[in-house]
């Protein structure tokens, strides 16, 4: 008991005595007349993997060289650790000067808590350089709260050899063709899909895409405000997830599988033990890390359209990354964010295959053919939906993940799933 209580209470205690840590130790902005006063920028991000890790560090050095009075103190954390640390520090009421954000509902909560700076005026001059899809996650109510560094989309990454083995000659364009292909793969003795059931978020991609295709982007947006996920279109999306799960397309023991562990979703595809996975633009690099890698056998196709659905087949689902600025940060923080997203600086990261283009005309810098395909689809996307676990408030997003996991495990019906999500959405209301 004691430990768990302390766990919960530690955070609360932090809140109680807010004041410590995080914020910029910005000295008075300008010492009278002479050189600008020394400034230390706290910068938090989560690019722990190469090539980004060293690329970002190089850019920070360059920024320091150009602005001798600025020192950048970077804190680099792995994904889950980053989320946890950011939650505690923001609950204490002090955000770092510059920090990585996925935008959406989590960002909105931070804005509502007064932790994030409105930088609309400071970045007005550079806004037209960005692609609208990349920028959309950082703009709320017409104000800009950050600049994007990465954008991507979720789609099917598949093993061309295994598709061939099952006699599938082209990527499925419709959902029913997709279900047929799953049956063909099974008949050929191939596990059609790898899924990380333990982590839940990879499963929510299926429901989210189906909801986008069947109900449309506007319906998802509306549900955020009317808290109603029981509408027939959402239930239909759930029924299609169930139809897929009923074919038992996933690898053995998928309910306990993680994403990037040695026997997880990524490794299963990477080692040729399953034909495909529904995953974001980082899938190839994680596959190369977690298993043998598929090399030229790896292909990409967009989520198929659903017959009779209201959504456009060109709508993309995904997210990216960006940098936001803490409320009390010195003005150099904004300069730094602008510096990081300048064409010449950012395109180096694109060239290295670390991120995808966020600036107009940057597509030519993408080298990898699969990523090029992703970038092209994104550039021509008819609409864009941010990950639901980021777009909605955390409680709702997590409930979507949870409910879809229950749907796939067969413990809940599509109707119950709609009701469960609505209930949590109302509790946030």
């Amino acid at each position, binding site marked *: *008991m*004691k*430990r*768990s*209580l*302390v*766990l*919960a*209470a*530690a*955070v*609360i*205690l932090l*809140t*109680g005595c*807010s004041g410590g840590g995080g914020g910029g130790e910005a000295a008075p902005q300008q010492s009278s007349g002479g050189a600008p006063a020394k400034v230390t920028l706290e910068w938090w991000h989560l690019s722990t993997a190469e090539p980004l890790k060293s690329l970002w560090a190089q850019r920070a050095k360059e920024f320091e060289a150009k602005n001798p009075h600025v020192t950048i103190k970077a804190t680099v954390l792995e994904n889950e650790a980053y989320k*946890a640390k950011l*939650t505690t520090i*923001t*609950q204490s*009421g002090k955000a770092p000067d510059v920090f990585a954000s996925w935008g959406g509902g989590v960002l909105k*909560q*931070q804005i*509502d*808590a*007064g*932790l994030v700076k409105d930088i609309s005026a400071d970045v007005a001059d550079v806004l037209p350089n960005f692609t609208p899809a990349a920028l959309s996650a950082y703009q709320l109510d017409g104000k800009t709260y950050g600049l994007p560094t990465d954008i991507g989309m979720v789609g099917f990454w598949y093993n061309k050899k295994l598709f061939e083995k099952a006699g599938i000659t082209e990527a499925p364009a419709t959902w029913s063709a997709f279900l047929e292909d799953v049956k063909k793969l099974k008949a050929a003795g191939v596990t059609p899909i790898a899924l990380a*059931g*333990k*982590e*839940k978020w990879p499963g929510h991609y299926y429901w989210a895409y189906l909801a986008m295709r069947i109900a449309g982007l506007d319906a998802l947006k509306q549900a955020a405000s009317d808290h109603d996920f029981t509408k027939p279109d959402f239930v239909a999306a759930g029924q299609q997830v169930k139809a897929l799960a009923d074919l038992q397309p996933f*690898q*053995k*023991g*998928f*309910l*306990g*599988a993680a994403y990037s*562990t*040695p*026997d997880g979703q990524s490794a*299963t595809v990477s080692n040729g*033990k399953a034909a495909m996975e529904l995953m974001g633009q980082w899938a190839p690099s994680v596959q190369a890390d977690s298993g043998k890698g598929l090399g030229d056998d790896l292909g990409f196709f967009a989520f198929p359209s659903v017959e009779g659905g209201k959504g456009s087949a060109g709508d993309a689902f995904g997210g990216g990354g960006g940098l936001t600025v803490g409320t009390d940060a010195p003005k150099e923080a904004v300069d730094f964010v602008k510096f990081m997203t300048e064409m010449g600086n950012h395109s180096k990261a694109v060239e290295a295959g670390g991120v995808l283009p966020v600036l107009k005309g940057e597509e030519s810098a993408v080298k990898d053919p699969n990523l090029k395909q992703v970038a092209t689809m994104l550039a021509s996307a008819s609409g864009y939906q941010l990950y639901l676990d980021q777009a909605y*408030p*955390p*409680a709702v997003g*997590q*409930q979507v993940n*949870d409910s879809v*996991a*229950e749907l796939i*495990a067969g*413990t*809940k019906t599509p109707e119950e799933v709609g009701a469960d999500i609505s209930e949590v959405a109302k*509790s*946030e209301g």
Partner: protein
Amino acid sequence: MTTLTRGPEAVKLPAPAPAARRRGRWVSIVLFLLPALVLFLMLVVAPMLVAIYSSVFKWNGFGGLPTDFIGLDNFTRLFTSEIFAQDLWHLAVLVLLSIFVQLPFSLAIAMLLNQRIRGRALYRVLFFAPYVLSEVITGVLFSLILSPGSGMANQLLSVFGWESEWLADPNTVMPSLFLVMTWKYFGFHMMIYLAGRQNIPNELIEAAQIDGATGWKTFRHVTLPLLGPTIRISVFLSVIYTIQLFDLVWILTGGGPSHSSETMAVTMMDWGFKRSQVGYASAISVVMFGLSLVFALLYQRFVMRRDLEGATTSAGGRP
């Protein structure tokens, strides 16, 4: 629990001191206690009070203290929640399994290792070793061993043509979890029983044997009753541990598949830290606290009363 360790009052004071000296002693006692007391108040009592306070608010944990008072709504929501009902059910299952499987098993091993057998010191160390490992390491270790695809467990069992999905199947996840818990904790209970057994004077056992008691009868009528206090303590520790069970579940399954291995602490973590509903999570922690407290008080009052009053473990108690 605290009543088990007797404080300074058990120390026999020397002949009554003059009033001034006695006051001086009190001042120094308070002074010496102060740092510990301040830490205790700050790190244990204050967070508890804040958790109780925030459990009656709707609060996402951001900025300042909560303001949106909703009375007992968090608790109503909790008691009608299907997941919380499941948590309680899992608690009951694990407690019963612990008491009727894990502890008897530990007792059997302890009795075995009390015999004169070759290398028993080595066995004792080996069986105790898992308890020394951190829960996180245990969790990672067993996620690898129990992995359905490539895990060691299935590779070994496949020799006999048998395999299981272990943690990945809602039907087998609880037994698998219990298996890991037992692996980790039976050594600890074994150690307690061994210590308890060695406190039993050998004369009693010998007397029983002279009276013609067989091995089982000696155990049933002499060893077991005299181990009573030790067993009651180990049941107590086991139940309290199970109420708070978190680390192992979090690493092994995260509460899944679809909540089939979730415990109260996991639910609390989920709502407090992943979903930012700190008020609701605080309500869960308050219920956990209440449950532990009620159990501890009742258990001490009715089950452990004799032990605490004197009989066997009264080393520091008053006459």
